[in-house]
C-alpha cells in the first residue's frame, strides 16, 4: 500500500528531520512519554526561533527541573539546566551579564509557579527582558503527578486522591497583574498560533510569557481517567475558545472545562535595564557606565583578538580589552579588562 518513500526501520539514518539543525538529535528519541504534549510545544518553539531570525549564537535557553525542564538538553543552542525553580534568576543574571542575548526560560508549571513563583512575579514586575515559556500540564509530571498550583479544581493527583480543592492560579491573570509586556495562552493543539505567539514573544521587548497547555498522558490523563494525550488533544479541539484580548480575570481553567486561549496582553512598558540606566545616568552622570555592555564589549574584543602565542603582530588582544574597559568605565574598575 505504501508507495511513497516512507523510511522503513534500518534506513532512517539517511533522513534528517527539518528541525534537526536545532536539536541534539543524538539524544532522540526523547524521554517524554507517548502522547505527552511537551514535544509538540518544543517543535513550535524551534520553528519560532527560525522565524524570529535571531542568530543562534545570540539565544540562550534556561530550564528548571521537571519533564519540561529537559528541553534544555535537547536544543542545539547554548542552554542551561538549572535547579528546581531557579530558571528565572539564572536567566536574569545571564541577561544582565550580556544584554545582547535573547534569554528564554522554558519550564513547567510547577517549576515556574510553585517553587519558582516568587521569581516569576518579580521578573514580570521588573519587566525583565526575558521570554518565559510555561508548559502547563496541570501537574508535577516528573515526580509522580503531585498537585501543582495550576491543578484545576477536583482533579485527582497523587497528593489529592479524593480530588483537588485548592483554587488554582490563573497564570495570565497573575502575569498581567505583575506587569508582563506580553501574555498569551494556547494549547499544544494550536500549533500554528502557538508558533506565532512564540515568534512575537521572542521579538517583544520586556517580559513576555507564553503559557502552553499540554497533555501529561501518564499522570494527569491516566489518573483522571481521561484516556491518553491523544484524547486530551481532541478535548482541546472541542473545548478551546479563541478570544484575543480577553479579560484575563475570566480565563481561569476548571477541571475538563472550556479553555480560553489567545493573545491577552501586548503592551509596552520600560524594561528593567532601561529604567536602571535611566536612573543611574540621571543620578551618577559620567560615573555611571553600562557594566554589562562593558563585559560584552570586552568579550567581543577577546574573541576578535588572535589567540595568544601566535606570531600576529597587528594587534594585541589583551591590551585591547583593557582599553575597552578603561574607555567605558571609571579608573577603579580597570580590572574589568583583565577577565580573560
Amino acid at each position, binding site marked *: *500500500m*505504501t*508507495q*511513497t*518513500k*516512507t*523510511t*522503513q*526501520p534500518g534506513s*532512517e539514518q*539517511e*533522513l*534528517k*528531520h*527539518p*528541525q*534537526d539543525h536545532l*536539536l541534539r*538529535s543524538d539524544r*532522540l*528519541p*526523547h524521554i*517524554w*512519554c*507517548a*502522547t*505527552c*504534549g*511537551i*514535544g*509538540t510545544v518544543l*517543535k*513550535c518553539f524551534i*520553528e519560532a526561533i527560525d522565524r524570529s531570525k535571531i542568530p543562534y549564537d545570540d539565544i540562550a535557553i534556561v530550564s528548571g527541573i521537571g519533564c519540561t525542564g529537559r528541553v534544555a538538553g535537547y536544543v542545539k543552542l547554548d542552554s542551561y539546566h538549572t535547579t528546581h525553580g531557579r530558571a528565572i534568576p539564572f536567566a536574569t543574571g545571564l541577561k544582565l551579564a550580556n544584554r545582547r542575548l535573547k534569554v528564554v526560560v522554558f519550564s513547567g508549571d510547577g517549576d515556574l509557579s510553585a517553587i519558582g513563583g516568587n521569581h516569576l512575579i518579580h521578573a514580570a514586575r521588573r519587566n525583565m527582558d526575558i521570554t518565559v515559556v510555561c508548559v502547563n500540564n496541570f501537574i508535577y509530571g516528573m515526580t509522580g503527578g503531585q498537585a501543582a498550583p495550576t491543578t484545576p479544581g477536583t482533579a485527582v493527583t497523587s497528593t489529592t486522591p479524593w480530588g483537588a480543592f485548592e483554587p488554582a492560579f490563573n497564570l495570565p491573570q497573575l502575569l498581567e497583574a505583575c506587569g508582563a509586556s506580553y501574555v498569551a495562552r494556547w494549547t*499544544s*493543539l494550536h*500549533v*500554528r498560533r502557538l*508558533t506565532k505567539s512564540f515568534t512575537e514573544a521572542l521579538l517583544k521587548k520586556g517580559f513576555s510569557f507564553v503559557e502552553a497547555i499540554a497533555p501529561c498522558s501518564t499522570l494527569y490523563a491516566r489518573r483522571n481517567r481521561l484516556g*491518553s*494525550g*491523544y484524547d486530551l*488533544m*481532541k478535548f482541546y479541539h472541542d473545548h478551546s475558545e479563541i478570544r484575543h484580548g480577553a479579560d484575563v480575570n475570566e480565563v481561569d481553567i476548571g477541571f475538563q472545562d472550556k479553555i480560553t486561549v489567545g493573545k491577552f496582553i501586548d503592551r509596552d512598558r520600560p524594561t528593567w535595564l532601561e529604567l536602571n540606566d535611566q536612573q543611574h545616568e540621571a543620578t551618577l552622570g559620567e560615573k555611571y557606565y553600562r557594566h554589562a555592555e562593558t563585559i560584552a564589549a570586552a568579550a567581543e574584543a577577546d574573541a576578535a583578538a588572535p589567540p595568544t602565542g601566535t606570531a600576529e603582530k597587528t594587534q594585541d588582544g589583551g591590551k585591547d580589552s583593557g582599553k575597552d574597559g578603561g574607555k567605558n568605565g571609571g579608573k577603579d574598575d580597570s580590572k574589568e579588562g583583565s577577565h580573560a
Partner: protein
Amino acid sequence: MRYWRVPLDADQIKIPQGEIHLLVDRCKGCEFCVEFCPRGVLVMSSEYNPKGYHYPEVAHPELCVDCDLCEVICPDFAIFCLPKTEEVNDGAS
C-alpha cells in the same frame, strides 16, 4: 476538492503535492499525525518499530497537500513532509 464557492482563479491554482518521510525509530505511536491530517493521508501501520510502537504509514499519497500539519504536531520529531515535485534532499550536504 469541493468548495462552497469556486474561487475566481480556481483554474490557475495548483494544489501542492507532498511526500511524507518518517524516522521510524523516533515514533511513539501517538497517532496525532493520523488524527489531525486534514486530508486523511495516513493510517497506523500494524507493524512495530524497534521500540515496540506502531507507526503511521501513507495510505493515500495522492491526497497529501504538503500542509506540514503532521510534521508540526508530531511530538517526537518523527514525521515530515517535503514538496513532491522537488528531488528529495536529505539535508546531508
